[in-house]
Every structure is written in C-alpha cells, then in structure tokens.
C-alpha cells in the first residue's frame, strides 16, 4: 500500500514552459514534505520542502504547493530548463520525525 503516490511516471515539457509534478499521500499524519531531484548514476539531492503550516514555499524557479484537505502537493518549475531533466521524488514524514516515505518518482524531460 503506497502511502506516497506519484501517478505520472514521466512528463515531457518544452524549454521555457512550466513543469508541474504531482504527489498524493494517504497518511493524514504526514505533515512535512520534501522534493528530491535525481540525475542518472547519482544519489537524490534535496530540492525544496514544505511543512503543513504553509500552503506554498518558493525557492527561485521552484515552488511547492500543499493542499492538506486533498492530501496533494505539487512542484512547479518555471521556466523549465534542459538541466531540470531528472527524476523527481516526493517524500513525506510525520510531525514526530518518523523516517521519510518516498514516492516512486516522476521522470521529467525538458525538451530544447
């Protein structure tokens, strides 16, 4: 039973356009969320986080939105660049610092 779901295995976007990656979760105890980015043959690297006290967090071209009632979060990348082509993982944890639970990832391809 996947507690963190990323229902789109892949996404292709033109350079300069917006990329929207989605993540859904089932555990209502989750209240802290991270996005990781992973290039081939490398480990995941931290991208951006959000806690449940916020509904939006922004860092440069990356913005994460959280809809707690829908148990849904999304990562927006604007504008998308070819260097953003990677696998993006959503991860979640509860307020008491339990270990993170990871989604299966979405492969983003930004086409020049």
């Amino acid at each position, binding site marked *: 039973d996947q507690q*963190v779901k990323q229902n789109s295995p892949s996404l292709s976007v033109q350079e300069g356009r917006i990329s929207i990656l989605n993540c859904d979760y089932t555990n209502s105890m989750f209240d*802290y969320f991270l996005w990781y980015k992973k290039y081939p043959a490398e*480990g*995941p*690297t931290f991208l951006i986080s959000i806690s449940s006290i916020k509904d939006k967090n922004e860092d440069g071209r990356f913005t994460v939105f959280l809809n707690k009632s829908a148990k849904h979060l999304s990562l927006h990348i604007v504008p998308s660049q070819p260097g953003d082509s990677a696998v993006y*993982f959503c*991860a979640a944890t509860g307020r008491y*610092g339990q270990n993170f639970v*990871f989604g*299966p990832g979405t492969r983003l391809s930004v086409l020049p």
Partner: protein
Amino acid sequence: NAGVTQTPKFRILKIGQSMTLQCTQDMNHNYMYWYRQDPGMGLKLIYYSVGAGITDKGEVPNGYNVSRSTTEDFPLRLELAAPSQTSVYFCASSPEKGISNYGYTFGSGTRLTVV
C-alpha cells in the same frame, strides 16, 4: 567535501554469495540510512541508525544486516544473495531524524545485480 561515499559503485554477485556495501560520511551526522530502489518504485528503507552502536529495522530488512561501530561508517551486509536483492542501494545521512530543512544527504548509489 566528500559528503556520503559509497563503495563499490557496481557489483555482480552469484546467488548465495555474500558482500558488504560500504558507506562513510564526513559530516558528523548522527543519523544514517540504507535504502534500495527498484525500477518504478520509491526508495524503500532497509535499516537505519540513530548513532554509533544503535541500529533499527526499516520497511524491508529481510536478507540484510548492518552495524554502526563509528559515527562515520554504516556498512550493509548481504549474507546469502538472492535475485530479489538486485537493486540500486543508496546510503544517506542526516543531522537529525525526519524533519530537517535540508532532508537527507545521499551517496551516489551501488548498483547490485544478483545472478
């Protein structure tokens, strides 16, 4: 600044063989983790450690063992390799458990194939 270092990067094992995946971090992090990633799946936690001498099982511990004799090192042992253990293994560390502004620092992974 090395971060988290994993060795080897690639390994092919025969069924029934054993091996140790090495993981070292130089950030003085208390928490360390071993994950495996299978195709189309998220990272699954195998074992974790909250400090030297303390380890605990994660979601998928069967077939693996760990030890944590120092803060820096967290090796993962496979005793009797099975084809189901073919995967990419990631070691990670963090200064604290779970909630952190910067998440985990991951190594570059070990791709293991059991034939």
